[in-house]
């Protein structure tokens, strides 16, 4: 526990010190929220939540912020490899599992804080969180998304020599996962042939879970969401831990 805390603490120190990174990573979801939200608000007709597209979009943007930040946090292991810091950690008498779990905890926390920032900013554009339980449910799903994708990032970083492959991962894994997740459009209004793909996308369940917490309405049963994204986070952690154990420096 002590070791996990130590690695987590380092991630937190780096987080609070990187103002530009914080602003950088909230700018994209914020941009989406404002332009897409206000731009399409009158065009898109939504069943359920009073037809308000912006409020529909908020959970998606929170999920996006959490996901992107956590992938970046996981990938940070590559920088540690290149800048030599990873050696310092690996030569200490601690298990690699502890290091990996600490990194996951740190990445997930960073990501949840970023998502929380989007959530707070959303309060200014009409989001209303009346139920504490709803907020806690949203938080739970943010944590699960954070864990899943930090572990995913660590798994990728464990197999990559440098950042050259990163763009590929972004374009062919991260963006599709985000785009297909139902973060931008309701599942019910998607073309029929995309729906099965969306249902295979683990992020869909994270987004729907946050949506249930924040708006009280979701198109997938929240318990199903919890089971899927919970299972996904455990699987990713296991894969990440396995690959990190074999990391070469």
């Amino acid at each position, binding site marked *: 526990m*002590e*070791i996990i*805390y*130590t690695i987590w*603490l*380092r991630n937190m*120190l*780096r987080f609070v*010190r*990187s103002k530009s990174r914080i602003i950088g990573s909230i700018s994209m979801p914020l941009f989406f929220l404002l332009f897409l939200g206000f731009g399409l608000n009158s065009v898109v007709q939504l069943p359920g939540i009073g037809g308000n597209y912006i409020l529909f979009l908020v959970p998606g943007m929170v999920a996006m912020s959490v996901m992107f930040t956590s992938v970046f946090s996981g990938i940070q292991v590559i920088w540690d490899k*290149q*800048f*030599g*810091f990873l*050696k*310092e*950690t*690996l*030569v*200490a*008498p*601690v298990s690699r599992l502890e290091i990996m779990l600490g990194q996951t905890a740190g990445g997930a926390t960073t990501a949840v804080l970023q998502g929380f920032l989007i959530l707070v900013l959303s309060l200014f554009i009409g989001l209303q969180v009346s139920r504490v339980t709803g907020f806690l449910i949203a938080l739970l799903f943010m944590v699960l998304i954070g864990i899943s994708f930090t572990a995913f990032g660590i798994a990728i970083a464990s197999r990559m020599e440098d950042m050259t492959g990163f763009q590929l991962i972004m374009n062919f894994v991260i963006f599709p996962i985000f785009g297909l997740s139902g973060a931008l459009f309701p599942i019910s209004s998607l073309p029929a042939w995309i729906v099965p793909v969306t249902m295979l996308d683990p992020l869909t369940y994270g987004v729907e879970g946050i949506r249930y917490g924040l708006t009280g309405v979701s198109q997938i049963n929240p318990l199903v969401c919890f089971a899927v994204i919970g299972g996904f986070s455990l699987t990713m952690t296991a894969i990440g831990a396995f690959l990190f154990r074999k990391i070469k*420096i």
Partner: protein
Amino acid sequence: MTVALQIQNLSRHFNDLVAVDNISFEIRQGEIFGLLGPNGAGKTTTLSMLATMLEPTSGSATVNGIDIRKDPDGVRKSIGIVFQDQSLDEELTAWENMDFHGRLYRIPKATRNRRITELLTLVELNDRRDDIVKTFSGGMRRRLEIARGLLHYPAVLFLDEPTLGLDPQTRNHLWQYIATLAQDNGITIILTTHYMEEADRLCDRIAIIDHGRIIAIDTPKNLKDGLGGDLVTIGSPEPAAVAAALREPWVARVETHNDNVVVSLKNADRHVSSIVTLLNTLQIPITSITIHKPTLEDVFLSFTGKTIREEEAGIKEQMRMHQKMLRH
């Protein structure tokens, strides 16, 4: 005599390349032991195996009596290491880097804080403890890394090129400090270096390693004495003729390096006139002649056929490449 490190037939291959080739030696507790060798000789690979960062291909070693293969965690607890390449978190302060290390080694808070202050003071960084490492010079970073390596009271300290790229003043300072460490605390130190005179001054024993093999291992004094006395370096356009002419009973050894012939002999100051007379009678031209006491530099040259300066040019190039990589 307590043995701190025992290395037996240790080898490491990278595919077809034999980086470390069946080396065996012992290092006593409290000894400062130097590994000297040209680039790519296998120094870092050897240290990596001893620090359990790299699996040996074959052979075995114990550190403080603990087998590096059977109990790597036990080994890790008892060693400190300063890597050849930097390994600090540049976005953290000096204190935070130390604190991270202390926590990883599970040093209780009170001890940790006291020890960090103590060590930062020792390497003269205590007044900069809350500055981000990014703002540190190369020498300051190196000092911080050495302080960090000592934080958990290691019984054995590995230093891979600890003074590479530092200015002479900082270098001197660091070496003094390393010497005190071994003397006062009984820490066993294994270091690699390219600075011969300092290795000479500091190390109790030295192993010269080339192409993964130990080709000489002894005290600096014995290594130098092994050259057979003083060294006379004769510059000539006809080095082969000089070498042939000087195969005399009073000459211990003759070696040719480029245009220079190096002969070793006892009481060179008395024999130098005979050398000049001899070469003159044979009408072999001489462009220069110098006499000096043998240094480790000469030992190195004699064993590897290369001067360390040739090696160092390569190192500086490497350092530049490395820094370039870091900047990107």
